[in-house]
């Protein structure tokens, strides 16, 4: 049985093209790029070329505005703590209630350290209310950090507009965005639409590069201090010997991702839309989280099934060779369901029954067919077991 991998917002398969360009830097070109002998020029040059490639993919920024990190989580930590350190007079942070934990937890930590942190709420569609953002801006606002697209629901946020409003209010506000789910799925242009963004993070493993490599963009002139000290690498802004093969792989993946945005928007979107429509037709009492949002990532489908629990759904899908994920309490390692779905006020009868299906360019019609074949049956079987499902009338019974 072929595995149907539809958990691409969690991680992705490494593209063969990416693996290929990485190989030499594991074997023949293993030298430390900082070394003096001529053999070290090859890896040093490879990093330079990779930086130029990524810079081009982000709208033609200055390559020196980019640093390579170990993950999007590191990029987020570096971005936010670096901005906090450089702006001691300001005490207010604005972020959202639906950020990835690598931003959300920093917000909570800064609150513990005495900062005022505004966690903007979202509405039932998962969207931010821009007026709330405007009212939250203060004279001592230090950072605005809003993700480009949500990893669970795929709902996209108007980062370009929010950044402009923040900068028109006060050029001293540092604007950060976590673009981890956006790169490769949406255009990310730091020279035009996103020209007011100061800091931008993403990682390689969501775009078919390996795990363990990320990027942080720091616009020239941004008040920001390095976080990892102890080396001259990355212009002294991120110490540590460069992970050459991964950096090379990430650049290749960026190139492929940029070229693939159109495919995401067309082929992948149509796969997702067909899956969504068919499941809506075949599964009664089904919520599509984020469906009514103005913009949603083309690859993401977040379902909430009334009356059953998401972890049990995942186990059943897994037995049929389908890899998906859930925001259910039972999969989170805590006892709480997803903070994103809670912020969206998904009904309590459905919030434990969420399933996230996230596609990539490697998914095809056959994968969608298999999910359509399996998921409605799994849901029906689990609902038979549920005290909250009336099997005779085929509806929720509380």
């Amino acid at each position, binding site marked *: 049985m072929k595995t149907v991998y539809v958990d691409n917002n969690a991680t992705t398969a490494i593209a063969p093209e990416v693996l290929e360009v990485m190989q030499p830097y594991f074997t023949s070109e293993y030298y430390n790029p900082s070394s003096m002998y001529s053999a070290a020029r090859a890896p040093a040059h490879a990093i330079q070329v990779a930086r130029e490639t990524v810079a081009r993919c982000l709208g033609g920024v200055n390559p020196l505005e980019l640093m390579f990190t170990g993950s999007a989580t590191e990029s987020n930590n570096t971005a936010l703590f670096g901005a906090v350190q450089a702006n001691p007079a300001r005490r*207010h942070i604005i972020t959202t209630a639906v950020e990835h934990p690598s931003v959300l937890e920093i*917000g*909570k930590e800064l*609150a*513990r350290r005495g900062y*005022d*942190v*505004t*966690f*903007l709420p979202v509405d039932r569609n998962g969207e931010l209310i*821009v*007026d*709330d953002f*405007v*009212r*939250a*801006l*203060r*004279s001592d606002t230090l950072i605005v950090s809003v993700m480009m697209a949500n990893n669970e629901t795929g709902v996209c946020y108007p980062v370009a*507009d929010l950044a*402009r*409003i923040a900068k*028109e*209010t006060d050029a001293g506000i540092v604007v950060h965005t976590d673009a981890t789910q956006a790169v490769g799925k949406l255009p990310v242009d730091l020279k035009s639409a996103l020209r007011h963004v100061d800091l931008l993070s993403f990682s390689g493993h969501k775009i078919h590069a390996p795990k363990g490599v990320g990027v942080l963009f720091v616009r020239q002139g941004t008040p920001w201090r390095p976080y990892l000290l102890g080396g001259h690498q990355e212009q002294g802004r991120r110490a540590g010997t460069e992970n050459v093969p991964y950096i090379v792989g990430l650049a290749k993946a960026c190139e492929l991702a940029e070229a693939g945005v159109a495919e995401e928007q067309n082929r992948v979107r149509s796969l997702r839309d067909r899956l969504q429509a068919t499941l809506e037709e075949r599964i009664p009492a089904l919520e599509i989280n984020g469906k009514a949002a103005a913009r949603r990532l083309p690859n993401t489908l977040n379902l909430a099934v009334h*009356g*059953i*629990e998401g*972890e*049990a759904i995942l*186990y*059943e899908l897994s*037995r049929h060779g389908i890899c998906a994920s859930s925001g*259910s*309490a*039972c*999969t*989170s*390692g*805590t*006892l*709480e*369901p997803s903070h994103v779905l809670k912020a969206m006020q998904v009904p*309590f*009868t459905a919030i*434990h029954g969420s399933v996230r299906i996230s596609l990539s360019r490697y998914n095809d019609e056959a994968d969608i067919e298999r999910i359509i074949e399996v998921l409605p049956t*799994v849901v029906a*079987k*689990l609902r*038979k*077991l*549920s*005290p*909250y499902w009336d099997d005779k009338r085929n509806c929720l019974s*509380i």
Partner: protein
Amino acid sequence: MPWDYSDKVLELFKAAVQGDAGTHMGELENPDGFGEYGSIACGDTLRFTFRVRRHPTDPARDVITVARYLTFGCTSAIAASEALCSLLEAQGKTPVEALKVTNQELVDFLGGLPEQKIHCSVMGAEALQRAVVDWARKRNYPIDGLLPDLAAENAQEGRIVCSCFSVTEPYLRRKIRELNLRTIAEITNALKAGGACGTCHHAPGGLQDLLNEIWGQPSGAPDEGAGAGVQPLSGAGRSSEHLERQVEAVLKNVISPLLRKEGGDIELIDIKGYKVYCRLTGQSGRCRSAPENVKLLVEQPLKEQVDVRLQVIAV
């Protein structure tokens, strides 16, 4: 995170979902005992029913013959429900004997449960107890002395300690003793209490206080630190009331009528110092929402008629 379930858990879950012969999914009509524990809001529920072979004269000698469940919950909750029914049917226990079935027996039957899933077995034991109480009521059997005061707990009497999962103080006190729970983590794993926001951990009368009271002496565990403070949204930074009134007046009396002639309007979102946040709506919103148009249509008149320092920001 993939849970490390035992083979037995996975086997029971699979059989239950497939409705294999010998599994116990379902709800008996007119059962001799009915018990339900949990809630959909908290993430798991077990509805448990059983039937007995009635003894002609002595209810104490009724024997449980059929047990069924409906479960809303994860893999291990469904497996634990299967375990409960299998165990009872296999052993031919009387309801009173069944009261002695502990969650540990269910855990053992399942070949172990991950620590964070222990509450699934507790749910089984609790639903069973409630069903036995129901049986006793129906059979007019005096059971009071054998049981904690479930009626009070069912009625949710007593102070709620963990509001995320609606766990009350009487229930916590009983279970902490019954299950020999010694730490907050053990309470959370077994009962879910304290597993969400965590404010009840070290609050006055919270989980740590209950543990101290029941087992004596504080454990000396360090506090986990205060929760995140959330700043309410506010229009901080406003300066001059007078300026704001002037801006509002010009927007209302000058700019809005102009826009309305063309089928649009303007909405004032906020004023912070000399910065005016507004949104063009309707016709004007569609064709003139670009920031430069807002400057032309709104900022210029405001600068001329109110204060040259004013700046308009399009939202």
